[in-house]
C-alpha cells in the first residue's frame, strides 16, 4: 500500500473558554501507521482528537480527512472511534452487546434504511474479531471493563474503517488484558492495514507497540518513529518539552 496522508492538521489552535488547549499544531498521519499520542494530563490530546472528528471546531487552522476539508467530509464509516467515554457510559443502559455493535453501522447504512440480517452478521464478525461473539446477547452493562472495551472496538470495526482513533482505551482494563488488547490492535494494524491513532498514558507500552509517536503539550514537541523516541535519554526528553516530562515520568511511576 502506498503511503497516503489520511489526516492532515495545519496550524490548528483551539481555546476552551479562555484557555488555549491546542496551539499551532501541524500533524500528518499516513496510512498504515500505528501512531501513539502521548502527553501529560491536560495537554490537549483528547481535544486534538475531538477536533479531528469535528466534535469541536478549531479557532484557527485547517483539518483534512482523507484529503477533504473536515466540513465537507461525509464518509464517517471510514473512521472508527473508541472514546474515553466508553469507560463511563450509562452502564444501566438496556442494550445487548449485539445492539451496541450494530450502532457502528449507522453511518454505513444511511438515513431511512433499516438494520437487516446482513448487518447482524457483520456485527457478529466484528465480535468474533475481538473474541466476544459468545457475549452477543449479554447486556452491555453486565460485562467487565475490559470486555466492554472490546465491544466498543467491535463497534468501531464493524463499518470496516481504514482509520481507528482510540482515546485511552486501556483505562479501567486490568493489566493482564492490556497485553491482549495491544496484540489485538497490532493485528488490526498489520493484518488489516488499519491506521491507528491512539492516546495513551502509558508511554512505555505504547512506544513498544506503536510505529510512530507524537508527544504533545498544547503543541507537538516530537513526531517520529517509536524507535527514535525510545533512544532519548531523560535529559533529551527534558529538553524536548521541559516541565511536561516531569509530570509524565511522575504519572508513569504510579
Amino acid at each position, binding site marked *: 500500500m502506498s503511503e497516503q496522508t489520511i489526516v492532515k492538521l495545519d496550524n490548528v489552535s483551539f481555546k476552551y473558554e479562555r484557555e488555549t488547549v491546542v496551539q499551532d499544531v501541524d500533524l500528518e498521519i499516513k496510512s498504515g501507521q500505528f501512531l501513539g499520542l502521548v502527553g501529560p494530563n491536560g495537554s490537549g490530546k483528547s481535544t486534538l482528537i475531538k477536533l479531528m472528528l469535528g466534535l469541536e471546531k478549531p479557532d484557527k487552522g485547517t483539518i483534512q480527512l482523507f484529503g477533504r476539508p473536515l466540513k465537507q467530509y461525509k464518509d464517517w464509516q471510514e473512521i472508527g472511534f473508541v*472514546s474515553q467515554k466508553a469507560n463511563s457510559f450509562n452502564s444501566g443502559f*438496556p442494550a445487548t452487546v449485539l445492539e451496541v455493535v450494530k*450502532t457502528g453501522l449507522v453511518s454505513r447504512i444511511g438515513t431511512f434504511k433499516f438494520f437487516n440480517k446482513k448487518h447482524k452478521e457483520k456485527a457478529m464478525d466484528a465480535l468474533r474479531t475481538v473474541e466476544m461473539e459468545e457475549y452477543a446477547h449479554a447486556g452491555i452493562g453486565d460485562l467487565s471493563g475490559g470486555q466492554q472495551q472490546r465491544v466498543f472496538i467491535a463497534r468501531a470495526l464493524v463499518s470496516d474503517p481504514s482509520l481507528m482513533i482510540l482515546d485511552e482505551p486501556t483505562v479501567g482494563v486490568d493489566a493482564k488484558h492490556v497485553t491482549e488488547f495491544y496484540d489485538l490492535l497490532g493485528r488490526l494494524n498489520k493484518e488489516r492495514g488499519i491506521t491507528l491513532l491512539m492516546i495513551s498514558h502509558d508511554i512505555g507500552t505504547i512506544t513498544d507497540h506503536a510505529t510512530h509517536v507524537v508527544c504533545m503539550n498544547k503543541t507537538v514537541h516530537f513526531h517520529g518513529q517509536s524507535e527514535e523516541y525510545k533512544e532519548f535519554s531523560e535529559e533529551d526528553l527534558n529538553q524536548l518539552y521541559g516541565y511536561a516530562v516531569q509530570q509524565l515520568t511522575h504519572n508513569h511511576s504510579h
Partner: protein
Amino acid sequence: MLESFMQFEFLQNAAITGLLIGIVAPLLGVFIVVRRLSLIADALSHITLTGIAASLLLEKRVSSIDDWNPVYMGMAFSVAGAILIERLRKVYKHYEELAIPIILSGGIGLGVILISLADGFNTDLFSYLFGSVTAVSRDSMWTVLLVTVIVIFIVIFFYKELFVLSFDEEHASVSGVNGRWIHLLFIVMVALVIASAMQVVGILLVSALMTLPVASALRIATSFKQTIGLSIAFGEVSVMVGLYSSYHLSVPPGGTIVVMAILILVMSIIYKNVRNQQWIKGEAS
C-alpha cells in the same frame, strides 16, 4: 362493559384513545428514561395545562369562540414549550437541566393566572388534571390516532438514529447523525404525545405513563427492543385495567392507571429479586 361500550360513544372514544396512548407514551418513554430526561415529560405536561387554561379562558371571554377543543391549544403550548426547553438548554450549556424547572414553573405560574381569570376551577379543568373517561371527544380521538401514526412512523424510520443518540451522543455525531435535528423531532413528538395522553390520564399523571412502564421493563428486559416491547405491554395493561376500573368505580382514570402501573412496577421488582436469589442459589449449589 361491552354492552355499554357499544352503546356509548364516549366510552369508545376513551377506550380507543387509551389504547393508542398506551402504545406511544411508553414507546417514547423508553428513550426519555434512558436519556435521563424523565423530568422533561413533567415540564411539558405542565405547559400543556397552560395551553388548556388559555383555551378555556378565551372560550369564556371571547363570545365568537364557542366550543373550542382545548386539546389543540394544549398541543400548541406543549410543542412551543419543547422548543423553548431546547433553546434554554443551549443558553445554560453547563446547567442543561435548569431548562426543565424554568419551563415547569413558568407553565404553572401562567396557568394559575389564566385559570383564575377564567373564574377558577371547574369540572372541565378537573378532568384535564386527572383524566376522564367521559371527556374525550370523537375529534380528539382522531387527532390522537393521527399523532400515534406519525410517532410510530418516525420512531420506526429513525430507530437507529434515536438509539445511537440515546446510547452515546458522541458516537452518534461521529457517525454523521444530525443529533440536533433528531433531538428536536423527538422532543416535539414527546410534546404531542403528552397533549394526547393528557385527556385520559390527566396532566398531573401523564409523565407517569411515560416512565413507570419503562421503569418496570428495565427490571426485566435484556435488550433495547425487549425494553420497548415490555414497556408498551405494561403501559397497555395499565391503561386498559385503569380505564375499566375507573368507569366502574367512578374515579378519575389518572388515578387508577397510575396505581395499576405502580402495581406492575412492584411486581417487576419482586420478580427480579426472586430471580436473582434463585440465580445465586443455583450458583452456590
